[in-house]
């Protein structure tokens, strides 16, 4: 009877230590998760800012200005446009 009690006592101490350890590890992992989620948020923010930047660079007035002035592009005259009927071509 005494031996059984001693064994159970030992078991309980071990269990208690295990609980403490896993709690600690759980919290560590939770913190890591938090850090990653924070990173996700930051990347989201950055993505949004890059999207804004992209749409700012790609505004139609800017594209037209560059096309006309820097690249010297023009809309072809209607006479120069040759429509091709794809369905007939196939």
């Amino acid at each position, binding site marked *: 009877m005494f031996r059984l009690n001693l064994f159970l006592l030992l078991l309980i101490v071990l269990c208690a230590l295990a609980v403490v350890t896993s709690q600690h590890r759980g*919290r560590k992992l*939770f*913190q890591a998760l*938090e850090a990653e989620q924070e990173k996700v948020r930051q990347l989201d*923010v950055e993505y*949004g*800012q890059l*999207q*804004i930047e992209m*749409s*700012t660079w790609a*505004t*139609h*007035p800017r594209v*037209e200005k560059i096309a006309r002035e820097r690249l010297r592009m023009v809309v072809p005259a*209607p*006479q120069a*446009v*040759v*429509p*091709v*009927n794809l369905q*007939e*071509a196939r």
Partner: protein
Amino acid sequence: MVVRRRPQRGHRYTESPILQLALQGWRSRMVGLLLMAAFLALLMRAFYLQVINNDFLQEKGDSRYLRDIEISASRGKVTDRHGDMLAVSTPMRSIWAIPADARTMSGEQKRLLAELVELKPRELDARLASEKTFVFVKRQVPPQTAEQIAALKLPGIHQEKEYRRYYPAGDMTAHLVGFTGVDDKGLEGVELAFQQSLLGRPGARTVIRDRRGNIIEDVGATRPPRDGNDVTLAIDSKIQYLAYSHLKATVTEHNAKGGGIVVLDTRTGEILALANWPTYNPNNRAKLSGEQLRNRAVTDTFEPGSTLKPFTVALGLEKGKYRYDSMIDCAPGRITIGRAVISDAHPHGQLSVAEVIQKSSNVGTTKIALSMPAESMWAMFDDLGFGKAPQLGFPGEVGGRLRPWKNWRPIEQATMSYGHGISVSLIQLARAYTVFARDGDLVPASLLRVDQPVVHGTPVFSAQTAREMRAMLEMVVGPGGTAPKAAVPGYRVGGKTGTAHKLEGGAYANKYIASFVGIAPISNPRLVVAVMIDEPGGNQYYGGQIAGPVFAGVMGGALRTLGIAPDAPLQVAAVNDGKGRM
């Protein structure tokens, strides 16, 4: 004697007569009772704390380490039909201070802060001199700058997360998209119309924080944040740009007071473009006037003038009163109704019904109108949606004025036939023209993208009438018509000009509204473009001269953008011509 007594001392106590006096029994019982009462009091207190007042104490305990955190949700984006962004939110920070604490900053710290928030040191001092417990140092600070400020660990300086709304398309779509005020509240346009849908709902979570402020555990249920829904408009930003830039150029060139343009997809009723002039930059709303804010195409009505003639004539055809080639005597270019005289800008003789449209004869249209009962004209205008708000869900949309037919006098019926005495908005006018572009049925206009073509609209005219009217409208841009400048090379287009006197204080002034509404390609219509120029300043004021070229530019560009095959090509590539050329 002293020596002898010593060993016996212990005994002598009890032998002492004083000590041997017995205490009275009630005294010991009294002490015992008091002690018991004290214990009982402690017990009761413990019971009170542990059981009765437990919640309060638990709360106090929790407040030492539990924290409620708000998880922010962003406002939905507004995009065009292809996903190009028209309005988007980006996180910013506001820097605020508790002035009493912040005044303890050193001079060096103040200088650094002032530099980061781009304030003059004097301005910063002025703000911190406040006696309030809360002042904004600077709002809408970019997150990177905010991080730098946080790293300085300044006393009394705090940060709050907030959002800023950007409108990448700027003034181009300002009237349509609108803008938000502080705290994400939509104030104009789509931002206001779809406020409920766009608005995000922040989430919340309860966590345990450790001594260093790290979150170590989630407690209880987390309420996830719900980001606002994105709104996809029917707008095509390329066509919108085309429409906007042509409108702007024309209004500026002719020194007009303003203008509007609407492009509709005839298959779905989608609004592919909607622009107004003057406009404003929604990203910088420092100096805004009501004039700039007005979305003329939707919230302003005007007397459309001759652009309404095709409807009167179509009704004449529909009722079987006239045929395409019936002749009407328009000589000598004027007609007297009661005491009023209606005249044509240029007198004509005999005109066919088609020529009445082509040459825009007021006399001819009046004769057709007066051959029909007022009630049927009213019913047609009503079917076309005049006098009723178009139900776009747009803030401030108007229905225009269509008076009940019972009060019409003959002169009124006559003027209404060519677009005076009735007022409409540009969007209503554009939408009404979809009946000619389609087989006589009217589709509802849509601000949002529609993925399925509307097969059956509300029938107004027969398919036969619509087809005949398309042929007449095509003559308007042909030789001898009122708007040769509205022709688009490579495509068959048709439309109607309008040059209306403006009503000012109940009388017609010598100011004009030049308009043009047209459809293309005539062989299989896809687009309706309606242009309105308010008070052109120069010598020119005719719809065909002013609004016609805008129509041609926008329609041509839009057809090309949408990849719609020319139905009147100037040359066609020889396909499979046997030489392997394509």
